[in-house]
C-alpha cells in the first residue's frame, strides 16, 4: 500500500480476540485490520454480536482478562504497539491519547461523584493540571459540548442531568485531554432522534475544530450516511467490507451490506410494499472460522463459501470486500 499524504494515526492489523467460556471458546473478533487517518471519521456498522464493540475495547485493553484474550495482532497508535506496552503506559493512553464514549451514559458515569470531579479526573491524572486549572478547563469543555450554565453545573451529580446532557458530559470527559483518536461506541443509540441530532451536530463541529480521528460504532446506517468518511461493515467477528461512504451506499459489493441496506425503511422516498429481510440468524462464533460467516444466510453462497473463508480484496479505490462473489456493478439494475 503506498504511503498517503497523511500518516495513519491508528493501524490495527490482524486482531483476534477470543473469550473463554464454560461451553468453550467464542471467537468474537477474527483477523480484523483497519486504519484511521487524523481528522477522519470511520464508521463501523454491524448487528449486535458482530464484534464491533469487542474490537474497539480490545484496542485499549478494556476487556477483562480472563475471559477475554487478545490472541493475535498489532494495534499501532502512531507506531507504538498498544498490545505490547506496560499496563502503566496503557493507563496513560486511555483517556489521554485515546478517548472513549460508551453507549449508555447512565451506567458509565459514576453516580456518587459530581460531574465536575469526573471531568477533572483525567485532566489531573493525564495532564498534571492543578485544581484551579483543571476546573477552568472543565468549564471550557462543558461549554464546548453545549451545556448551558456550565460553571454552575460542575457540582451536580449525573442523575441531575437528562440523557442527552449526560452523553454530552461523557463526550466532554473523552475530549478532556485532546485525544488523537476518539472511539464512540453507539453514543446515540440510547437517545431520542431530536437529541441525537444535537449530539451529531456537536461531534461534527468538534471534529472540524479539533481535527481528531473518530471511530464511530453504530448499527444505524442513517447516522453513518450523515457523518462518516469511510465505513467498515462487520459480520460474524470479521470485516466483510470497507469502503468510502458514497461507494458503500451506492455500490455495495458484499451480499450482507446489500441486504442490510435494503432492510431499512426510510422517512422519505419510495415506500416498499414489503420489507426485504435477511432470513436466518447471525452465526454463533464457536470456533475459528474456516468458512464465510455469512454463508448460511447468503443468497449467493456456493461450495467454496462453505469450505474457505474469503479474504478481503480490493475492488476499487479504498474499497475492499471479503467475498468470493464480489457483486459486479449490476446492483442498480437488479434492484430496478
Amino acid at each position: 500500500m503506498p504511503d498517503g499524504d497523511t500518516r495513519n494515526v491508528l493501524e490495527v492489523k490482524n486482531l483476534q480476540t477470543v473469550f473463554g467460556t464454560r461451553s468453550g471458546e467464542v471467537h468474537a473478533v477474527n483477523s480484523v485490520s483497519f486504519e484511521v487517518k487524523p481528522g477522519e471519521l470511520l464508521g463501523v456498522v454491524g448487528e449486535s454480536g458482530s464484534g464491533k464493540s469487542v474490537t474497539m475495547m480490545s484496542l485499549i485493553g478494556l476487556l477483562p482478562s480472563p475471559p477475554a484474550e487478545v490472541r493475535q495482532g498489532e494495534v499501532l497508535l502512531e507506531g507504538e504497539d498498544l498490545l505490547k506496552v506496560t499496563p502503566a503506559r496503557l493507563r496513560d493512553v486511555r483517556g489521554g491519547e485515546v478517548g472513549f464514549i460508551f453507549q449508555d451514559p447512565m451506567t458509565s458515569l459514576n453516580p456518587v461523584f459530581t460531574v465536575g470531579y469526573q471531568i477533572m479526573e483525567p485532566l489531573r491524572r493525564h495532564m498534571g493540571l492543578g485544581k484551579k486549572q483543571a476546573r477552568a478547563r472543565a468549564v471550557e469543555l462543558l461549554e464546548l459540548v453545549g451545556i448551558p450554565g456550565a460553571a454552575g453545573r460542575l457540582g451536580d451529580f449525573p442523575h441531575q442531568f437528562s440523557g442527552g446532557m449526560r452523553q454530552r458530559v461523557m463526550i466532554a470527559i473523552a475530549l478532556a485531554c485532546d485525544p488523537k483518536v476518539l472511539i464512540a461506541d453507539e453514543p446515540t443509540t440510547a437517545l431520542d432522534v431530536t437529541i441525537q441530532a444535537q449530539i451529531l451536530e456537536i461531534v461534527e463541529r468538534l471534529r472540524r475544530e479539533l481535527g481528531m480521528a473518530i471511530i464511530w460504532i453504530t448499527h444505524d446506517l442513517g447516522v453513518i450516511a450523515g457523518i462518516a468518511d469511510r465505513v467498515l461493515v462487520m459480520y460474524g467477528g470479521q470485516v466483510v467490507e470497507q469502503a468510502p461512504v458514497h461507494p458503500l451506499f451506492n455500490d455495495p459489493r458484499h451480499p450482507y451490506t446489500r441486504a442490510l441496506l435494503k432492510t431499512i425503511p426510510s422517512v422519505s422516498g419510495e415506500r416498499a410494499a414489503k420489507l426485504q429481510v435477511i432470513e436466518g440468524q447471525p452465526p454463533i462464533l464457536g470456533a475459528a472460522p474456516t468458512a464465510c460467516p455469512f454463508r448460511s444466510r447468503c443468497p449467493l453462497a456456493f461450495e467454496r463459501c462453505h469450505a474457505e473463508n474469503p479474504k478481503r480484496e480490493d475492488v476499487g479505490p479504498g474499497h475492499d470486500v471479503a467475498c468470493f462473489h464480489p457483486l459486479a456493478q449490476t446492483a442498480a439494475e437488479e434492484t430496478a
Partner: protein
Amino acid sequence: MTPPLVEVRDLKMHFPIYAGILRKQVGAVKAVDGVSFDILEGETLGLVGESGCGKSTCGRAVLRLYDITDGEIVVDGRAIGGEDQRSLRRMRPTMQMVFQDPQACLNPRMTVGAIIGEPLVEHSGMSRAERTARVEELMDKVGLNRAFINRYPHEFSGGQRQRIGIARALALNPKFIVCDEPIAALDVSIQAQVVNLLEELQDSLGLTYLFISHDLSMVRHIADRVAVMYLGKVVELAPRDALYDAPLHPYTEALLSAVPEPDPAKAGQRKDRIVLQGDVPSPANPPEGCNFCTRCPKVMDVCREIDPEFREVQPGHWAACHLHDTE
C-alpha cells in the same frame, strides 16, 4: 359507515406524586393529558414520539391496564373507560398486547407451550389436547418450529422471543392488538422479519393495530395513519403520506428532519435540518400554553398563553398548533 373499532376521547392518565411525612399529594405526572383518536377496523395507527412523551402509557391505558384518570374508551362497541377490572376480564380476549422487551415479558420458568397456552387456560374451556393443538397452530402461524414447544425462552434469540410474544397475543383471536415498541430491542435485519410477520398476520386475520414506536421510518412503513405525541398530548394526527410529506406541526417537522437518512447523497444536501434546542420539559410541570412552546422554532406570543386546540385543519389531518388558527 361502520363505526371505528377503537374510540378514545379525552383520555387522561395522571400519576399522583406524594411528598412529605404525611405522603400528601403535591402534584401529578400528566403522562397522558387529553388524548383523542379513532382506530378503524383493520387499520394500523402508528403512535410516535420521544421517550417520556406518554405513548406507552397511552397504549396501556387504552387497554385499561391502568385505572384511567378521565376519558372515554370504546373498544368493539363497548365502553370500557369506567369498567372495573373484574368485568374487563371478559373483554380481554378481544384486545391484546405485544410488549417491548421480549426478554422481560416472558416468564423464564415456563416453557414456550405454557406461555402461549396460558391465555387459553384463563379464558377458554379447552381441554389439554385442544390447547396443545392450538399452541402448535399458533407456532406455525408466527414461524416458530413446533418441535420447540417444550423449550424455555432463554433458548431463543431476540427475534424468536418476540414471535413467542406475538403468538401469545394471538391465542384468543383478538381483534385489536397494542404493539408497544415490538421491534425496539431487535437488530435491524431481525426487525424487518418481525414487521413483515405483523403485516402478514394483519392481512390474514384482519387485525387492528395500535403500533407504538419511536422509529419514524418503521412507522411510515407499517402504519396507515400516524399520531405524533409530545408531552402527554397528540399534537398531530394524519394519514401516513400527508404526515410525512407535509407535516403541519413544527414538532413533527423537527422530528422528521432529525431522522438520519440512510443515503449519504441526501444527508449531504440536507442543510435544512431543524435541530431542536433543549430537552423535553417534565410532564409533572408542563409549560403554560402550548406544551411545545419552550422548544418550538416558530413560537409566537400566543403560544405561551393559550393551549392550542386539537382540530381538523385539513380533511382527516388534525393538528394542535396556533400556526393553523383560522382567524
